[in-house]
């Protein structure tokens, strides 16, 4: 192997050399490929960040004279995603071993491929965990020995380049430390490529993989790499069954993540500027009339999808706009639709120490299950029950049973049953003014839903009275 040119030494942090890599290790060859590529591309090292994971390959950032982030095992691509999305102008290289990239970091690897973010991932594939002592890796070929597969591996290995291709990486190439010319060429192409680029490099670990599998000295291991692989172009020799193809498998131009994100920001900023003209409602006068009890506790209950939480939010919003102290809490199960849920509001003329309803002064029940599950009413309180919630339940003395769903349907849709109920409650109790509720509807609802809900509020108010 020729000596590294003097001109390339400027790219190295020689004070940390010799580093952790064993004599005969192929990782130095890969690093030579990286610095040669950076030199060919005239990259300024103060604009380059090399991010590494954990393991022998993960140490590469220390030996490059760029900024370096030596991160946690398997997570280098996720750290690099943070760096690159925050500073898209930087050249970000990510150096990982095969275990780092494809085992513990496999999830980050496939998602980085999918996102197509402009990072250059260099996977040093030596078929083993070198730093921890030669254990089986997800790339260890079937039948090969490691310190955790002393009788030979029985697992099929990952083909990292195939994985990258399937997951959507827009540049994928595989080469070896034997392929002296291709190695820097592919890395340079990958760095220049505007998207997520993967270069998988088969590299020799004479200390473990080679020794445990009797592959001879480092030079003999380079022959092993040559014989193991088959160049897809130019085809200079016959392919032998079982050989791994090497070469450039993909170079596509696809929309790159940070550029698409910048466009999205421009769209969002334009939309925000357009919406800036919208004015808030005029402030409402304070509602000075005393609450029926102070604090006053309200519980809306029903099933997921009935808008129970929104009803509570609208009441709290409206009462707050009239100068009351308010707190709204909600309780629901995992169901987005169905199940029982409740939404509670406390109204008070003073600060509310405890935010949850303990004994409600007013209860709205919109579903049979809610009527069964959420019991308890303060003596003298009121309970408004949707007529269909009584299915299988016996209303208590004093319950106000109302056709809330029917009223909502008549107003234009069952969806608005929550606002019918809110209107009925406000009409009966006078907790908030109708103006305040209407203003809350305008603040909280999409314009296209306003007419229906305004009708529902009016209808509910009428039913309640």
């Amino acid at each position, binding site marked *: 192997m020729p000596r590294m040119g003097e001109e390339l030494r400027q790219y190295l942090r020689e004070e940390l050399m010799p580093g952790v890599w064993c004599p005969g290790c192929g990782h130095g060859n890969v690093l030579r490929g990286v610095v040669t590529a950076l030199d060919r591309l005239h990259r300024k090292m103060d604009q380059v960040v090399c991010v590494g994971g954990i393991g022998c390959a993960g140490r590469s950032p220390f030996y490059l004279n760029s900024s370096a982030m030596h991160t*946690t095992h398997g*997570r280098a691509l996720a750290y690099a995603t943070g760096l690159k*999305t*925050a500073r898209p102008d930087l050249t970000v290289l990510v150096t990982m071993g095969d275990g780092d990239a494809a085992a513990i970091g496999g999830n980050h690897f496939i998602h980085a491929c999918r996102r197509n973010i402009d990072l250059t991932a260099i996977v040093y594939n030596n078929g083993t965990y070198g730093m921890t002592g030669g254990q089986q890796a997800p790339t260890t070929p079937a039948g090969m020995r490691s310190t955790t597969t002393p009788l030979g591996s029985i697992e099929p290995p990952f083909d990292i380049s195939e994985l990258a291709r399937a997951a959507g990486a827009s540049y994928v190439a595989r080469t070896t430390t034997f392929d002296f010319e291709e190695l820097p060429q592919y890395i340079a192409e990958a760095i220049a490529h505007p998207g997520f680029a993967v270069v998988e490099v088969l590299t020799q670990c004479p200390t473990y993989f080679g020794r445990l599998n009797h592959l001879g000295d480092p030079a003999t291991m380079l022959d092993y790499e040559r014989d193991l692989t088959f160049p897809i172009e130019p085809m200079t020799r016959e392919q032998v069954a079982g050989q791994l193809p090497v070469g450039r498998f993909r170079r596509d131009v696809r929309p790159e993540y940070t550029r698409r994100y910048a466009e999205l920001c421009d*769209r969002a900023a334009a939309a925000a500027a357009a919406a800036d003209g919208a004015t808030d409602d005029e402030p409402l006068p304070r509602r000075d009339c005393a609450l029926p009890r102070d604090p006053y506790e309200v519980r809306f209950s029903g099933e997921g999808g009935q808008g129970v939480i929104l009803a509570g939010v609208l009441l*709290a*919003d409206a009462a707050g706009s009239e100068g009351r102290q308010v*707190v709204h809490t909600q309780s629901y199960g995992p169901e987005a639709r169905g199940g029982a849920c409740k939404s509670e509001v406390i109204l008070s003329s003073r600060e509310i120490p405890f935010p949850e309803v303990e004994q409600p002064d007013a209860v709205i029940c919109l579903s049979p299950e809610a009527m069964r599950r959420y019991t308890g009413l303060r003596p003298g309180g009121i309970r408004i029950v949707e007529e269909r919630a009584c299915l299988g339940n016996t209303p208590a003395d004093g319950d106000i049973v109302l056709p809330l769903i029917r009223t909502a349907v008549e107003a234009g849709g069952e969806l608005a049953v929550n606002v019918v109920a809110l209107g009925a409650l406000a009409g009966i109790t006078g907790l908030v003014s109708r103006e305040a509720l209407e203003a809350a509807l305008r603040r909280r609802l999409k314009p296209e839903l306003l007419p229906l809900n305004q009708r529902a509020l009016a209808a509910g108010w009428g039913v309640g009275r």
Partner: protein
Amino acid sequence: MRLIQGNEACALGALHAGCTYYAGYPITPASEIMEQMARMLPARHGVFVQMEDEIAALAAVIGASWAGAKAMTATSGPGFSLMQENLGYAAMTETPCVVVDSQRMGPSTGLPTLPSQGDVMQARWGSHGDRPGVTLTASSVGQVYEVTVAAFNISERYRVPVVLLLDAVVSHMREGVELPDLPVVTRQAPADPAAFLPFGGTDFMPLGAGKPIVVTGLAHAASGLPRATDGANAARMLQRVVDRIDAAGEEILRTRALALEDAEVGIIAYGISARPARGAVELLRAEGIRAGLLELETIWPLPEQAIRDLAARTRLLLVPEMNLGQLVLAIRATVEGRTPVLALNRVDGQVFPPAEIAAAIRQAVAEVRVPVEPAFREVQHAAHG
């Protein structure tokens, strides 16, 4: 006055503090923070990224912080568990960032929509090894906003990851609040960039700003270069970051006092449990028991002096927590037997009603006539039993 949700207040506080970067993964009950950021950041030319899991979320946040951004993520217990290794990395690399954990009842998937205070010890000790741990809490929507700003400010000034513990109730609660214009702290650029040592002080220079910078989770020198076998250097570097937080005092140790001036019994509470504790103080005062509340907005580092001062002048202390007794262990260690410290616990996903806390105080006051050592032991035992 605006009616806003706790999680929305967190997002608004973050933006006020200058947060320009959010990476996250959806989880109940924290998702609204993420959704708000997804809505608000792009128009401000900030960055929002949805990552593939919580491990990646915190990794991206740390990467972004080293790119110079004020960055945050938010999660709940299961995601917070996944973040622990990278939280240790953030501490080791003195990376300013904010991690919100809206607690839900665990262990494991637990009760995903119900509140808990079960992550108190995890926030402090969840990552392997020793590290400085700053953890803040909030009990109201207005406080979520203020404490989120404080979390960023502390994180930026002291170059330390800050954890903000919320819970399912505080996150989803809505209250009418005024959002005050709070002061904002931003990490300091080095006076002399050429002589900058990334791990020499609290000044900060991002990657890609003209000087190669090395960041590693290995033990390292002030220059950032690894010193992975130099134990004395590693000990010095760790002590340095821990001492920095211990010496900070007031800005970090945030507490609120309610009716403590003449209190004979004290409640020490934090997060959502401080709300019923307020109610309990009112109930007890109405019947002639002089109760007071020390609310800890900062639980780590523990405001030890405030707790010792209170212990010195009260007959007993009660610590209500929605876990099986976590912060009470540290409070007892701080009080060192000066006064009995009782634990009141529940793990059923329900917030204590004020009456339950009041009843515990009433009973304790009846039992603890003279706070001498034997009685103290019995009460402690009973509280655990």
